[in-house]
C-alpha cells in the first residue's frame, strides 16, 4: 500500500515536470535540457523565501518567478537563434542548464537542504497530507491544462502552432504570444514539481539532472510531444519505479525508468500514444 502511494506521488511529480517539457518540445521542436534546472531553480527560490515566510506563499511566489524566468530565458536565449535548428537550440539549452545549475550552486553551495514545513500526522494510513496535496495538485493541473488547451482561445492557438506554426501564422495567430504562454506554463509546472520534490525529499544540486532524465524517459514512453501520452507514461514510470523497488534494490530506481524506455523504444518507438493514435501522427 505504501509503495502504491509513493508510486502515485512520484508519478504526480514526474507528470508535472514532463507535461511542461512536452509543451515546449511541441511548440519549439527541440529538447530543452534546461527544463530540469527549472525544477531546481524553483526549489531553491522557494527555499530562499521559506526563510522569511511559510512554505505556501513562498512556493506560490517561487512558481510565478520561475514562470517569468522561463519566458525570459526563451526570449533571451532561444528565440534569437530559433532559425538555426534543433541542434543549436539543444546545446544552448545544455549551456543554460549549466549556467542555472552553476549560479544556484555558487549561491547556495553543495549542502543538502530541506524546507521548513510543519510536521503532520498521517491522515489515511500510509499517506500524509503532503502526499495527498501533491496528488490533488497534479490532478488539478492536468484537468486545468486539458481545459486550457481544448476550450480557451489561447490554448487552441498553442495547439495550432504546435501542429503547424507556419499555417498558424498565416491564419493570424500571434506566435510570440502563444510562446510566452507555453514557456510560462511549462516553467511554472516544472517549478511546482521542483517544490514538491523538495517537500517529500530534499533539495540538492543534482535534483535537476536526475529529474530531466526521468522526464526524458516519460517523454519517450509517452511518444515524443504527445501531452496525453506523457501523462499516462508518467503514471507508468512513477508506479514502476516505486513498485519495482519491492523486487530490485532501491538504488536502481532510475535504472528501472531507463530499462522501460529502452524496451519501449525497441518494441514501439512511437510510445504509448500510438496505442490510441493509430495514424502514428503526433498529437497535442
Amino acid at each position, binding site marked *: 500500500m505504501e509503495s502504491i502511494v509513493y508510486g502515485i506521488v512520484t508519478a504526480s511529480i514526474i507528470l508535472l515536470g514532463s507535461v511542461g517539457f512536452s509543451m515546449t518540445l511541441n511548440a519549439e521542436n527541440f*529538447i530543452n535540457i534546461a527544463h530540469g534546472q527549472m525544477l531546481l531553480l524553483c526549489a531553491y527560490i522557494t527555499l530562499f523565501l521559506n526563510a522569511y515566510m511559510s512554505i505556501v506563499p513562498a512556493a506560490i511566489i517561487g512558481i510565478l518567478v520561475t514562470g517569468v524566468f522561463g519566458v525570459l530565458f526563451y526570449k533571451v536565449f532561444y528565440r534569437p*537563434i530559433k532559425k538555426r535548428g534543433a541542434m543549436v537550440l539543444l546545446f544552448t539549452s*545544455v549551456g543554460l542548464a549549466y549556467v542555472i545549475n552553476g549560479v544556484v550552486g*555558487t549561491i547556495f553551495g553543495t549542502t543538502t537542504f530541506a524546507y521548513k514545513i510543519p510536521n503532520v500526522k498521517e491522515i489515511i494510513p500510509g499517506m500524509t497530507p503532503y502526499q495527498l496535496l501533491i496528488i490533488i495538485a497534479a490532478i488539478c493541473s492536468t484537468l486545468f491544462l486539458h481545459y486550457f488547451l481544448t476550450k480557451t482561445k489561447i490554448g487552441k492557438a498553442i495547439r495550432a502552432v504546435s501542429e503547424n506554426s507556419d499555417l498558424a501564422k498565416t491564419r493570424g495567430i500571434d506566435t510570440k504570444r502563444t510562446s510566452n504562454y507555453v514557456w510560462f506554463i511549462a516553467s511554472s509546472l516544472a517549478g511546482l514539481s521542483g517544490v514538491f520534490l523538495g517537500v517529500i525529499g530534499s533539495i540538492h544540486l543534482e535534483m535537476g*539532472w536526475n529529474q530531466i532524465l526521468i522526464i526524458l524517459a516519460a517523454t519517450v514512453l509517452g511518444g*515524443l510531444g504527445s501531452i496525453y501520452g506523457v501523462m499516462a507514461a508518467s503514471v507508468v514510470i512513477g508506479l514502476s519505479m516505486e513498485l519495482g523497488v519491492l523486487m530490485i534494490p532501491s538504488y536502481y530506481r532510475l535504472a528501472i525508468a531507463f530499462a522501460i524506455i529502452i524496451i519501449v523504444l525497441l518494441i514501439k518507438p512511437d510510445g504509448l500514444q500510438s496505442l490510441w493514435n493509430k495514424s502514428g501522427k503526433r498529437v497535442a
Partner: protein
Amino acid sequence: MLTGTALFLSSILTLAAIYAVIALALNLEAGVDGLWDLGVVSFVAVGAYTYTMLTVSPASAGQSYIMGFGLPMWVGVLAAGIAGSIVAFLIGKPTLKLKNEYFLITTFAFAEVIRQILTNERWLSNGVAGVYNLAQPFKTYFTPSVYPYILLLLLVIIVFIVYVVVHRLTYSTFGRSLKALRENEPLALTAGIRPDRFHIRAFVIAGFFAGTAGAFYVWYSTVITPSLFTSDITFFVWMAIVIGGLANNKGAIVGSVIFVLAGESLRFLDLGSGFAVRMASMKIAILGLILIAILKWRPQGILPEKKVKFSNSSKNS
C-alpha cells in the same frame, strides 16, 4: 613557483589531450556523421574499467572486483578500445534506426544505467570505493618530478596518432559517405550508401577511440571510481567540439584545449578559502555561458568545417 605553474599547466594539458581523444571520436560520429550521441561517456567508462580490471593485480582483502590479471598496459589499452567498440555495437544495433531525438535520449539513458551498475555492483568493480594507486606508463624510467611532462608528451603523441587516423577516415570514401548521409539521407541512399551499415561503423569506431581514452584517463587520474564518469563528460566533450567547430578534427583538439584551460584557469582566482567548494559551480556556470555565446555568435565554432572541393579530373585529362 615557476615549476609549480609548469606542473599545473602540464597537468591540465594532459587532461585536455584526453578530452581531445574523446572529442575526436565524438566528432567522427556526431560531426562527420550526424549522430546525436549523448552517451559517449559510456564508452569511456567501459574502456577505463576494462583497462583497469585487466591490468591491476588481483583484488586484495577488503576489495572486490573481477579479473585483475595484471596484463601489460598495451593489452589493456587495446582491450579498452575493443570493449568500447563492443558496447557501441550493442547500443547502436537497436538504437541507430531510431530518429535523432530518440537516439539522443536512449544513449543518454544507457550511459546513466552503465554508471549505476558500476556504482552499485560492488563485486564487479569495487563499487563507489573504486580502485586506487593504479600504475602509470613508463613511470619507473623517470624521476617523479619530470614524470608529468613525460605523460603529457605521451598523450600528445597519442592525440596526434588518433588525429591522423580520424582525419584520414574523414576524408576517405567512408567519411564522405557519412557526410552524404548527414546532409541528405534519401539522396545518399540513391547513391547506394546504406545508412544502417555506415552509422554503425562510425559508432563502433568512435566507441573504440573513446574506449582507449578511458584507459588514458586512468593513467592520468591513477584512480577509478564511477563518479568520474558522469554525463558531465559527455556534455563537456560536446561543448569542446561545438566550441572548436563541429566536423573539424583540428577544431576538436583546439576546442578541448580551450575548454579545459577555460575551466581550470579559474583556479587561479583567489577568492579565499570557504569559496573553494562553490568554485566548481561557478566553473560550470561560466562554461555554460561560453557555450551559449559560441552558439549565438559563432555557431560554426572557432575552426569551421572545411568544404572539400573536388576538381573534375575527367575535364582535366
